[in-house]
């Protein structure tokens, strides 16, 4: 549920003269920075580097023998670990399957909220709910919805005469789509709010000018709205993709990765490997591969989109 960089308040811009130039870094500056910097170095940067180092060792939990440096052996094993690549594929499917529809839906909602409609306050109020809920509760809630007997989804299916309904979360074919729908629901508010902010940034005059020139709704969207919200749209999509790929709690509660590993996201896999089987080094190697692949995908995505210019 972090949302750094998307929903942070943006202060006023500095006056043309720029911020006041202060003396170079002095004692006082360090005094201000150190209380946060030390914990960051000790508990975030340090563990990250340690984690990368662990990926090259045979570290295990609860073992008396000392940990040895084994070079790239973990990575070689990972290459041949079909279960891991299955989970990797599922992770990508899940991340794309959540991010893309969520973006489309959130854009639609943001456009509606930006229009002068009456139920805006209600939509805003409701949009808080998925955002503020603990992921564990979101998972539990949807398990109640999906429940084969007492759930409202199957009851609706039955009421509509579409059959007896099914066991959505344990059916091999329906499990992944079912958790993806929950993922879309859970992340709607952040995406909507970010896009709405972008929309309110769109100059109104341009819209009106385009309308006077006889441009239809779609043309106005393409030529006026989209260019204005593009930076926000790219940023939020990229972040959503990363968060989704790395997500854990939602699917852990919904399916624990089942049935038969069909919803086993890489994080669930790595968690089991590390904390159920105690394979710390191997799980760390998984983490490294996840970071590497995410970085590559994002670099390609951002380079293509940002450099591509007009591609609507």
């Amino acid at each position, binding site marked *: 549920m972090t949302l750094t960089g998307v929903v942070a308040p943006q202060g006023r811009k500095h006056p043309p003269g720029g911020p006041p130039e202060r003396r170079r870094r002095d004692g006082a500056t360090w005094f201000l920075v150190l209380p946060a910097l030390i914990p960051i170095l000790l508990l975030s940067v340090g563990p990250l580097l340690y984690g990368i180092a662990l990926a090259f060792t045979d570290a295990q939990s609860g073992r008396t023998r000392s940990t040895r440096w084994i070079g790239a052996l973990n990575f070689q094993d990972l290459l041949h670990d079909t279960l891991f690549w299955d989970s990797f594929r599922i992770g990508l499917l899940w991340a794309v399957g959540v991010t893309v529809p969520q973006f489309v839906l959130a854009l639609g909602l943001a456009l509606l909220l930006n229009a002068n409609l009456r139920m805006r306050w209600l939509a805003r109020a409701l949009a808080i709910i998925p955002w503020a809920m603990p*992921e564990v509760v979101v998972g539990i809630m949807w398990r109640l919805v999906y429940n084969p007997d*007492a759930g409202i989804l199957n009851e609706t299916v039955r009421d509509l005469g579409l059959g007896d309904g099914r066991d959505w979360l344990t059916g091999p074919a329906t499990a992944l789509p079912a958790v993806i729908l929950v993922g879309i629901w859970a992340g709607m508010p952040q995406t909507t709010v970010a896009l709405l902010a972008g929309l309110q940034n769109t100059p109104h005059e341009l819209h009106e000018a385009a309308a006077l020139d006889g441009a239809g709704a779609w043309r106005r969207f393409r030529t006026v709205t989209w260019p204005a919200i593009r930076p926000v749209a790219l940023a939020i999509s990229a972040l959503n993709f990363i968060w989704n790929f790395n997500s854990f709690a939602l699917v852990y509660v919904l399916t624990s990765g089942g049935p038969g590993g069909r919803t086993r996201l890489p994080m669930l896999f790595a968690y089991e490997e590390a*904390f159920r089987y105690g394979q710390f080094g191997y799980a760390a190697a998984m983490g490294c591969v996840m970071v590497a692949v995410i970085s590559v995908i994002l670099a390609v995505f951002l380079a293509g989109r940002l450099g591509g210019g007009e591609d609507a």
Partner: protein
Amino acid sequence: MSPRTGGAARTGQYAALVCYLVFLAFPFLWLISTAFKPARELGSLHPTWLPEDPTLDNFRQAFDEQPLLRAAANSLTAALCAALIAVVIATPMAYVMARHRGRLSTAATGWVVISQAFPFVLVIIPLFLVLKNLHLINSLWGLIMVYVVWSLPFALWMLAGYVRAVPPELEEAAAVDGAGKARILVSVTAPLLAPGIVATALFAFITAWNEFFFALVLLKTPEKQTLPVVLTHFLGAEGVADLGPLAAAAALATLPSLLLFAFIQKRITGGLTTGAVKH
């Protein structure tokens, strides 16, 4: 959206909005409804939308089955301490990030962005080993330390935004009057930042209150576990055991963050939109 949207288009817009509202609201309404249903209704093969015979039994049973109060107290302690510590140490650094362009603030901003991309498993394994050596596994203090650092990226980001919104002229005036840097921060800038600091603290609180992964890994015994972890015990080994108490406990666990979020929502969305409009 457009200066002249026709009546049909308007109707379409409202229809779409209603669909969104249903999509957003119905799982939540179902949770609440389930929480108040008596066991008899929950066992029925044809569930009703609303409880026909609302009851509080599920809540009572939930408290009987799991140590919910204890878990809530643990969550409260962890979230409160983490939020307070995070804000206290982040505010000065955010100030430096906002006011001084230098390698330090560039590095800090870079770290804020990059830290969003870690899979937590890469951080939690070493943290687990370190905390184990410090005997801080299964300790709320260990979890609080992790939460503090984990909430720092967005705390720094939010607070730096609030600092930038404070006109530097005020600080310059104080500097001319001979006030030192720390003095300026405490007596000029901090009071203006107070609402932003509160919003950031509440946000950090909610994030920690809702957090699951670190708590799952670091807390072993039920007496130490936080609310989200204890909630998963209701699920049992094989599917959902007891729908009513599960729903009741889940609904209760949401309440604090929902209320706080309603309180700061305007600040979060409002800060964003005004910032965007003013550019």
